[in-house]
């Protein structure tokens, strides 16, 4: 199955378009938009998977108080079926609290949390549709990997041959084949993380909630775990929290940024990246020291900062590309330009910008 996402079919043509898709014998996953009713009525026998918003996560006006102190205040967001969403925020912003509420560990003080269209705090059965990797990845250290996965499987009501098959599959998928007969306490942190992921995935949940899945791992392990998440996210709805920006860029369609219990951004990654794009910043390195005022004379330059005697940070006033002008400036004066680059408005910068504390 090749997942294709993001096709939106509207209006009276919807049915014929879908039928055309179905005739190609593709599996079509149809999401009806909220508020449009039950939506499409396809003839019986059509080769079609329906998942009408079944895998979605909906959070409405969620507030959680610890004592009198709000950990999360009035948070609302949606995760559409099949989407991979990063949940960003500095430490203590309320990420873990939100995830604990999403998985039914904590009840919300106010507001509602719907997973697969069911209120989490009321329907225990929803938990079967959720795979959860808690923060710090708690595991029974004195259990063997196989024993632990069998226990988790049985808790989800998987038995006998089916359980054996699923455990075998998940062990292979999570790269635990060589470690499967070891005690969990003997495993390295990276492998423990895989065991954590394996227990979250064992019952083939539709919704995956991962709380900081790569914290504390070495760079190789981070890449491995990231690839693993990517490979499993193909037909699942995934919400994961992190404070590593590259991770979001590597994995997500969309990011929700939370700070001090409130959502400060909920945008597609590229929209997030293009924030503050109006200001262009360029770094120019020259071979010999030059006068800063001369640089200021270039058309379109609003500000020049000295980084070292020969290197300058140049801001453009209009956001236009200053590189040709700087190059000509150097050529006209016979200066050797060693380097000239535009500073990317990285996700880190956007993150810092969004979550910096207001000046006290």
């Amino acid at each position, binding site marked *: 199955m090749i997942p294709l996402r993001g096709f939106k079919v509207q209006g009276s043509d919807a049915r014929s378009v879908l039928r055309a898709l179905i005739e190609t014998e593709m599996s079509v996953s149809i999401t009806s938009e909220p508020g449009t009713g039950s939506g499409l009525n396809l003839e019986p026998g059509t080769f079609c998977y329906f998942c009408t918003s079944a895998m979605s996560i909906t959070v409405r006006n969620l507030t959680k108080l610890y004592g009198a102190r709000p950990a999360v205040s009035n948070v609302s967001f949606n995760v559409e079926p099949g989407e991979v969403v990063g949940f960003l925020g500095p430490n203590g912003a309320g990420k873990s609290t939100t995830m*604990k509420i999403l*998985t*039914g*560990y*904590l*009840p919300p003080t106010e507001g509602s949390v719907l997973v697969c269209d069911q209120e989490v705090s009321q329907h*225990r*059965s929803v*938990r*079967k549709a*959720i795979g*959860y990797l*808690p*923060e*710090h990845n*708690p*595991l*029974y*250290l*004195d*259990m063997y990997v196989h*024993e632990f996965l069998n*226990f*988790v499987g*049985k*808790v*989800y*009501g998987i038995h006998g041959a089916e359980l054996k098959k699923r455990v075998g599959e998940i062990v292979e998928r999570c790269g635990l084949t060589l470690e499967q007969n070891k005690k969990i306490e003997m495993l390295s942190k990276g492998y423990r993380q895989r065991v954590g992921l394996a*227990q979250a995935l064992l019952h083939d949940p539709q919704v995956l909630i991962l709380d900081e899945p790569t914290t504390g791992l070495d760079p190789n392990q981070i890449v491995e775990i990231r690839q693993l998440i990517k490979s499993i996210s193909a037909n699942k709805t995934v919400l994961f929290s992190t404070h590593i920006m590259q991770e979001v860029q590597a994995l997500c369609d969309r990011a929700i940024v939370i700070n001090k219990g409130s959502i400060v951004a909920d945008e597609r990654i590229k929209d997030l990246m293009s924030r503050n794009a109006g200001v262009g910043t360029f770094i120019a390195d020259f071979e010999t020291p030059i006068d800063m005022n001369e640089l200021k004379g270039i058309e379109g330059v609003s500000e020049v900062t000295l980084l070292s005697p020969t290197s300058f940070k140049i801001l453009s006033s209009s956001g236009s590309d200053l590189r040709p002008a700087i190059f000509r400036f150097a050529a006209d004066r016979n200066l050797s330009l060693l380097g000239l680059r535009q500073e990317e408005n990285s996700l880190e910068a956007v993150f810092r910008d969004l979550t910096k504390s207001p000046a006290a």
Partner: protein
Amino acid sequence: MIRVFAKEIGGFLNSLIAYIVVGVFLTAIGLLMWVFKDTSVFENGFADMSTLFTLGPYVLVFLIPAITMKSFAEERKLGTMELLQTKPLTDWDILLGKFFAAVVLLLCALLPTLVYYYTVYQLGNPVGNVDSSGTFGSYIGLFLLGAVFCAIGILASSLTNNQIVAFLFAALLCFLFYSGLDSFAALVMAGDQGLFIRQLGIVYHYESLSRGLIDSRDVIYFLSVCFVFLLATKTVLGSRSW
């Protein structure tokens, strides 16, 4: 519930706790019954098992908290409580699984002492001159008392994430309920009030059972005390939502 029960039993067997608890219990009771002069059956002169049933509860006051101390305290410390409580398990599933696992371990400690009964039975003059009904009433009493201690231990374990605190608190509560209330009643009150307080304690009902008559009131007492402590544990587990 069965899943948690199976996991707990597996945990007992894997971590040697089961062997140590059963071993210590049998060693202690064996020494008291057959070796130490003050309490030995041979020195006693009567073919009965009163040593087991009078000293057994005091051994259990220390042993059962040792069995139950890790049940919730460790899960809290490791964070695996969150793992369990986000699975499709109810709080009752989790705590009853742990409770029954502890009760089964207790049973494993008590069953081998039936050999002592056989020995005493053979030692009687004439053979078989033993108060069998009293003995089996006492066995039932000891088992129910142990079950109450398990419930107390599990409550204590759910209150803290420190196993030593859980152990000490459970031992204190067990002792208090076993003979503390009885001593208290004897100390300060006489008459009906004193009787009422005595009846709250375990000794009153334990002694009643050991006379060999299985009185439903005593059985109901033990079961309801278990239930009250388990309900308290359930409340503690649910308190995260307050």
